[in-house]
C-alpha cells in the first residue's frame, strides 16, 4: 500500500529521518512507536505530503506522491490536536469537507452518530472542548471510507466512553482492504488495535515486524513489556532523554 525508500529528512543540521525503508501492506494495522523526537510525526507528515523529504521516495498505491495531491483521497487523517476556524460550525466543517470531495457520496457517518455530533452541528468550533474537537477529527478521518487511515494519538483527550467507541470503530474497519497507521503512547490501545510494530529511535527504524514476533523475541506477553525490553537493548548512547 505504502512503500518508503531511502527516506531522509533533516531540519537544518538535525537529521530527523535517516534512510527509512518501510513497506506498509494492505490489510495490516501498524503501530508506530518511539520516544519523543524520534521522527514519528515527521514520518506521518511525509506520507501526507505535509513535510517535503530531502531525499528518498514515497509511493502510495504504487504511485510516487512527489508533486501529487490526488493520492490524499486514499488517506484519512486524524491529527493529534485538531484546530478549526473559530467561527465555523461543526456542520459547516463537514459540509466543507464533503464539498472538497463532492464526487464521493457514500460517506461513513457512523462516528458522527456515535459521538452525537449531528446534535451539536450548529455549535461554533471555539466553543468546543478539546475532546469534542478530537471527536470531530476522528469522524472526519473515517468520513470518506479511505483505504489508508493515519491516526495520530487517536485516543488522547477522549473520554473513556468515546475512546472505547473509537477503538471499536477501528477494529470494525480493520478489514483486508484497509491499512492503519496508528501512533500512541497508550500501549494497551495499540495492543488491541494493531498487528505490526514500527519502532523508531532518533530517525532510524529499530524494529519493524509483527507484534507477535516481538513478543516471541522478547518472551513477553504484554506489548508494553516487550517494548520496554527493546528500549533496554538499545545502546545507551542512542537513547534520547
Amino acid at each position, binding site marked *: 500500500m505504502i512503500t518508503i525508500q531511502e527516506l531522509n529528512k533533516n*531540519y537544518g543540521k538535525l537529521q530527523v529521518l535517516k534512510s527509512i525503508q518501510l513497506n506498509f501492506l494492505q490489510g495490516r494495522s501498524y503501530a508506530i512507536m518511539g520516544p519523543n523526537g524520534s521522527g514519528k510525526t515527521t514520518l506521518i*507528515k511525509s506520507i*501526507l*505530503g*505535509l*513535510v*517535503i523529504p530531502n531525499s528518498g521516495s514515497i509511493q502510495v498505491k504504487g504511485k510516487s506522491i512527489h508533486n501529487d*495531491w*490526488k*493520492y*490524499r*483521497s486514499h*488517506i484519512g*487523517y486524524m*491529527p493529534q*490536536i*485538531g*484546530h*478549526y*476556524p*473559530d*467561527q*465555523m460550525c461543526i456542520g*459547516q*466543517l463537514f*459540509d*466543507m*469537507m464533503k*464539498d*472538497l*470531495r463532492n464526487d464521493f457520496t457514500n460517506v461513513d457517518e457512523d462516528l458522527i452518530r456515535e459521538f452525537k455530533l449531528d446534535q451539536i452541528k450548529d455549535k461554533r468550533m471555539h466553543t468546543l472542548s478539546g475532546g469534542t474537537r478530537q471527536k470531530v*477529527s476522528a469522524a*472526519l478521518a473515517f468520513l470518506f471510507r479511505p483505504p489508508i487511515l*493515519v491516526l495520530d494519538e487517536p485516543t488522547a483527550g477522549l473520554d473513556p466512553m468515546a475512546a472505547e467507541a473509537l477503538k471499536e470503530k477501528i477494529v470494525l474497519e480493520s478489514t483486508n482492504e484497509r491499512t492503519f497507521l496508528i501512533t500512541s503512547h497508550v500501549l494497551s490501545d495499540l495492543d488491541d488495535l494493531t498487528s505490526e510494530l514500527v519502532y523508531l529511535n532518533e530517525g532510524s527504524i529499530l524494529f519493524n515486524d509483527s507484534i507477535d514476533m516481538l513478543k516471541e523475541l522478547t518472551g513477553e506477553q504484554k506489548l508494553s513489556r516487550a517494548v520496554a525490553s527493546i528500549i533496554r537493548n538499545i545502546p545507551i548512547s542512542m537513547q534520547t532523554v
Partner: protein
Amino acid sequence: MIKIGKYILYDMVRNRFVMAYTFFLLLVTLSMFSLDSDPGKSTISLMNIVLLVVPLVSIVFTTIHFYNSYEFMEMLLAQPVHRKTIYFAEYLSVSIALSVAFLSGVALPLCVFNFNESTLYLILIGVMLTFIFVALAFAASVATRDKARAIGIALLFWFYFAIIYDGLVLYIIYTFSDYPMEKVTLSLVSLNPIDLARIVILLKLDVSAMMGYTGAFYQNFFGSGGGIIYSLLIMIVWILLPLLIAHRKFCLKDI
C-alpha cells in the same frame, strides 16, 4: 479554491477582531466628518489614518491569523487538495474580509458624506493597500515557523514602509539636493506602496498646487491616464511580488 475560500471567509467576517476593526474605521470616519466642516480636509485627515492603520492592521492581523489557522491548514493539506489552492484561498479570504471591513468602515460613510473622484481613489487605494499588506504578511509568515518572530517581521515591514523608508528618501534627497531629483523621487515613490498611495490621493485632492515644481511634475505624470494605469500596475506588482514569493516558499514548506 472558491469552496474553501467561501468557508474561511464566512469564518473571517464573524471574527471579533475584524468586527472591531470595522467599527474602529467607522468611528474614525464619522468623527472626522463631524469634527471638520470642510469635507476635503476630512478626506485628508482620513487619508493619514488610512495610510497608517490599514497597512498595520492588515499585516499584523494576517500574520496572527496565519498562525492561528496553522493546524487547520495542516488538516486541509491532508485532504486531496493542491497546496496552491489552500494558499490562495487563505490569501483571498483574508484580503476580502479585511477589504469588506475597510469598505463598510470607510467607503460607506464616505459615499454618504463626500463622494467625489478623490474619495473614490482613497477607497480604491485602501483596498489595494489591504491586499498588498496581507500579501506581505504571508511573506513574513512563511519565512519562519515561530509566531512571535513572524509578527516581528510583519511589524518591521510596516515600520519600514510607513516610516524608515521615508527617512531614507529624505536622506537621499538631502545628499543629492543639487541635482534634479524629480525622476529619481518618482521611482522612489514606486518602491513604496504607502508613498505611492499618498501621492496619488494628494494629487487628486487639489492640493497639488502646493507641491511646487515636483508636484507639477507628478501631476503631469499621475494626472494623465497613463500615470493612473502606471500606479495601478505598480500596486498590482506590489501585491503579486510578495504573494508569489511567499507562495513558492509555502509550496516547499514543511507544515
